[in-house]
């Protein structure tokens, strides 16, 4: 497969460091896929081939790993991927309302990417932050909790200005100080 992607020398150095951590190459697949996704924004088929070549592993293996984890993007995604949780707790607290609000606001459906390549929306399963439902995660990174339409507006604005929202630490009820 002709490949349009290439790792930079720094990437290759990082991959060497990763490989050195394991007695075999196979376990290096996951972290190397991360290196690739950070570099290219996705691990679409050609990138999978590149990873396989770099690690000297069967492409089928890399493909199997890449498709097993939803966090690896198997196709080109927007710069910011908005994973809106629609599992039980979030659903009950308006997860779908949030999803649909976003869809309308950005003019795309879940699973799609805006024309300018800025945003993708996905409807995802529980992200383990049920206590702060409804919530979403941005590009496998920051959680935005207790979503409201206003909060979404803010987030989109700041993302448009390339500013990731701050990580919000939400204490558990037993940890909140009684006053």
């Amino acid at each position, binding site marked *: *497969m002709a490949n349009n992607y290439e790792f930079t020398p720094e990437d290759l150095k990082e991959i060497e460091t990763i490989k050195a951590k394991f007695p075999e190459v196979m376990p290096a697949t996951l972290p190397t896929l991360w290196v690739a996704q950070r570099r290219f924004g996705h691990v679409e*088929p050609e990138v*999978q*081939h590149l990873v*396989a070549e770099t690690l000297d592993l*069967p*492409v*089928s*293996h*890399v*493909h*199997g790993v890449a*498709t*097993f984890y939803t966090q690896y993007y198997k196709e080109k995604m927007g710069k910011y991927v908005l994973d809106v949780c629609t599992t039980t707790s979030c659903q009950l607290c308006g997860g779908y309302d949030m999803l649909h609000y976003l869809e309308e606001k950005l003019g795309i459906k879940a699973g799609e990417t805006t024309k300018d390549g800025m945003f993708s929306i996905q409807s995802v399963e529980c992200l383990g932050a049920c206590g702060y439902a409804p919530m979403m995660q941005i590009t496998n990174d920051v959680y935005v909790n207790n979503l409201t339409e206003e909060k979404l507006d803010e987030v989109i604005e700041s993302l448009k200005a390339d500013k990731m929202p701050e990580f919000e630490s939400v204490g558990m009820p037993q940890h909140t100080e009684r006053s």
Partner: protein
Amino acid sequence: MPEIFIDGKRYEFEGKPKLLQFILDNGKEVPFFCYHPEMSAPANCRQCYVKVGTPVQNRETGEYELDENGERVIRWFPKMQTSCSMEMTDGMVVHTQETSEEVARAQKDTMELILINHPLDCPICDQAGECPLQIQTYKYGPEGSRFEVKKVHKPKRVELGPRVTLDAERCINCTRCVRFTEEISGTHQLTISSRGDKNYPITAPGMEFDDPYSLNTVDICPVGALTSTDFRFKARVWEMNQTPSIDITGGKGTNVDLWTRDNLVLRLTPRYNENVNTHWMPDEARMAYRKFNENRISRPSIKADGNNQIKTSWNNAIETFAEKLEAVKPADVLVLGSAHASVEENYSLMKLFSTWGVSDFHFSPDVKEGFGDDFLLTDDQAPNTNGVKALGFSETSAEDLKAAIKSAKVVVLLNDELVDRGVLDSEDLKKPFVISLATNETETSKSTDLVIPITCIAEHAASYVNVEGRIQRSLPAKETKYTHRKLDLEMSEGRLDRYGTNFDNWVNEDNKVDCTPIWELMNNLGKRLGLSVQFGTSREIMDEIASSNSSFEGVSYEKMDDENGIQLTGMNKEEVSA
């Protein structure tokens, strides 16, 4: 010796066998899907559940602790264990579904889960009739499903490669196919994609499943997910006969089964032989079935005017054969044996002609350098090179052969596609009168003057010596115009053969080829020539060979059948590679 108690019965064992294999080896049964004796056991189908316990031992004395009745105290594993991956230990106690309700229930529940998204379209599924899922569901599964919502849909009719088609919905994700490419063929072409209820095996994007052994995955797939693109939808399993035979497309002597219906061979599958091919066969070898059905020579033909061959009677063919011989001296006749024909065929040809006075016998080896691998493909393209050599045919190069043909007046050619495989040019066969004894219409048979049809491996019992010097034999699977499965006790009879009649609309008389085994032809020719050569069945011919040729000492059909082939003494791999 270590002991184990399975369903209350004591067995002794050696080494560290795995429980499931041991249970199977002892003629008992536990349902399973993902386990395969030649591959690693990932224990992912969870079907082979059994209940396992080990005796409690006193740490100091090593004595078994006993209860008030004097019985050993057993500590049961807290959960069901997968027997395929469970290593046996001394004193282990096991309950299968036969003696434990709990185990039977666990197996049933697993089956219910496996079936949740299974389409259960057995009536249109190629696997039906030979489907472990179908059989085991029938024996151990739930009677119905409690799952009433829509099943998950997955890709159907996916062409994984040139020969294998996938129906992902039927896949139970046992990973046998993936492990085959990882552990047996080593091409690593398959992987399981995605996860949960969405997963199924696939190649990496942009890649093809063109493994030279890809069709083995169809055999080991425990469901109808992987099907042979060539064979799918051609026949229901129960309509076919299964006859043991040998692969003739190479030198390995891979053991195969021929599957026939109405005297057509519809597919070939590998037959287990631990000394030759174990469970596998190359894809190429599977296509040989077409040769058994297509372009067969039926009834002799003779070159009339110019290059046209016309059909002729058997009487005329033998009469012509004899006249041509009588018109020349034995020294003017060139007899060519064939590594593509069996020991018995070459022998009967040789015997008749040496009685008549011919002293030189030749054959042209069919070797493609570099074609072989370390597995089942060999450089040798013929199934019986060692056999013809051992009979005394001398290996002859293309140049020598051409020269010999030039100086001969009559050439007798036993089934070998010399023109097609480029050893000869059809021009080379112009001068002498060439008689070919052949199974299929080829460029070679077209270039000869008299063509007499003979039976192919699917129609006769005959033996072949593989590259390692192992002699193995075939059984007749397909009737000719002159044989009948009800009379030939070596032929198997399927349901359709047994209960059908010649007037059924699925019966086609044309599927029976008008040909005879070469030994019968030699009998007729010998009689016409006034020679006292008489052959019986191929079984008798083999006895005759065994008593007259030291290479074949001790060989008989009984022994070959009992021992799944016989390693001939004095023949080994080294000798062969020459």
